[in-house]
């Protein structure tokens, strides 16, 4: 190959990459740099100026409320992640593997997606009449005679936030897992049976390892969404549960850009660690 054509190839590669690179720099790299930069600005009650200072960072780690919100975010994320996995995996197993007909499994997957036809906020708010003191669940339990007084902890508590988030995000766990399970060659499972393995062994040694990439993708989806959450906790916790997302909303609302940026940077770092951690579990490149 001549030097000229090598050069032309290089120019072409550059031209093809340019739009994407420009886009990412303008709308991803630059804003993140900006947020990091603003987090070091000096905030006074009514104004902000670009004198660099560590005050906002110091305030964040000195405040019990802010650090508490960080831990609450991590705790709620772990609980919701576990619940979506525990509830989502069996559902995915049924849809992706146990249902023999491809049509039925597609129909079931579509059914999982139907709640998305209503808006996110309505789906969250719909939990209020379900969980409230005079809500559906309390009424039914009282009618059946299981309880005398309504269970108050159901709504405006951490529990209601967990219930709401799990319901909303579980489908993001079911989808990728069901997809991976659907790709498993049925002959492989029969081969394992033929070699004398019972269902438990086949599940743990064949089915689960082969579905692991789906679990990781689902976990990344759920994690990214739950860690950045503010609406569900805002609507279902009665302001009792503060997540990092809620703090950003409040700080931006009162024009405290520096503190909002600090929380944003911390959230971004947390997300980066979580996603990187999940990607270490499986080599997703091999699956695509």
């Amino acid at each position, binding site marked *: 190959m001549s030097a000229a054509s090598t050069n032309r190839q290089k120019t072409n590669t550059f031209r093809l990459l340019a739009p994407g690179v420009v886009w990412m720099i303008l709308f991803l790299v630059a804003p993140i740099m900006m947020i990091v930069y603003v987090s070091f600005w000096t905030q006074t009650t009514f104004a902000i100026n670009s004198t660099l200072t560590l005050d906002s960072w110091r305030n964040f780690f000195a405040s019990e409320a802010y650090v508490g919100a960080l831990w609450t975010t991590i705790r709620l994320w772990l609980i919701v992640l576990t619940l979506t996995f525990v509830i989502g995996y069996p559902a995915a197993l049924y849809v992706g593997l146990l249902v023999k007909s491809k049509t039925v499994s597609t129909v079931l997957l579509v059914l999982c997606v139907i709640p998305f036809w209503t808006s996110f906020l309505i789906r969250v708010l719909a939990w209020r009449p379900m969980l409230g003191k005079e809500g559906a669940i309390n009424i039914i339990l009282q009618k059946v005679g299981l309880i005398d007084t309504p269970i108050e902890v159901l709504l405006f508590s951490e529990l209601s936030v967990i219930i709401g988030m799990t319901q909303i995000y579980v489908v993001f766990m079911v989808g990728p897992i069901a997809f991976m399970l659907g790709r498993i060659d049925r002959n492989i499972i*029969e081969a394992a049976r*033929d070699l*004398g*393995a019972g269902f438990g062994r086949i599940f743990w040694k064949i089915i689960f390892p082969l579905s692991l990439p789906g679990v990781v993708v689902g976990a990344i989806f759920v994690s990214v969404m739950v860690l950045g959450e503010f609406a569900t906790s805002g609507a279902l916790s009665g302001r009792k549960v503060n997540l990092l997302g809620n703090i950003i909303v409040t700080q931006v609302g009162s024009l405290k850009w520096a503190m909002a940026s600090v929380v944003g940077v911390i959230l971004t770092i947390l997300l980066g660690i979580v996603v990187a951690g999940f990607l270490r579990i499986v080599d997703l490149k091999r699956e695509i």
Partner: protein
Amino acid sequence: MTQSDPIFRLEGVTRRYGNLTALDGIDFVAEDNSYIALLGPSGSGKTSLLRVIAGFETPDKGRIWFQGRDITDLPAHERGIGFVFQNFALFPHLTIFENVAFGLRHGATKVPDAEITDRVRASIDMVGLSGLEDRNPDQISGGQKQRVALARSLVMQPKLVLLDEPLGALDANLRERMQTELRAIRERLDVTFLHVTGSETEALAMGDRVAVLDAGRIIQHGTPDSIYDSPAVSDVAQFLNRFNMFEGSLKDGMFHGAFGAVSVASARPNDTDVYAIRYDRTRIFDADASDLPGPALPVRYLASEYLGSSIIFLFETADHKTVEVDHHLSLGEPRDLTVGQNYVLSWDPAQAIVFGKESAR
């Protein structure tokens, strides 16, 4: 071959899918320690039969006996029958070693680790894959996958291994080498192979016994030469792909066909009247020849195919039916034929096989 107790026995095994009858009351007895080839066209129920024997499907009717025991209601993982899948079905996330070790590690009986290592190594060695133990299934070739699938079944020391078109996914060269190797491996171990195939040459070459399956029934069962030399019904002759088959009518010991009327010494019972003569028993004569050994079939010459050891000449009859003549070159140089020219085909009537509704005399 020593006669011994049957390794497995099928009694009226029937399997239906909706309206479709895949297996229609199959009775079959297989001797221990033999190579059985199951020949049938696609859709004849070959794979269904294997799956029923392996326990992946339950028959609607009938019983399955294995080593003198009724296993009809036994789940697949308790049967101890090996199965080699057409697409090999290796575990993609496990190494070759772990693939072969799977049954020993996770099967019903607990096997000590040291014994697992020994048996897996011996098994991998037997199929000639030593040194590849740590590879993944996507790092080896099709022929090697085939061997891993075989080793994975054989390491369990089964008395019966079912092979579902095991050579179907391999290229022609490899197929021939694996044919020899499969036979050699089977003879070394005390095990019965039931090998399903759609290829008549493969079935005849490999089987100690050949069973021919058609539309869910076994229509003939015997040694390869008995099947080749005397197909029981016209369908078997059809599958063997070695016969020119003529329709016609059989009446009072005379067969009336495109080649005129021929007297027939004996006929085998069949649903239709069919006259069959092997490709290599059919001979070519000039259109005006008078010294014919038997009936005369006027034909037009179309083309020839050179196969190395023989030549196949293709002719067309007046009613556009293709007729083949197989000329072995060891019998001398073939005659020169002109494309489009008319010739006459003839044969010794004693070598023909006649099937008829009226199985005469």
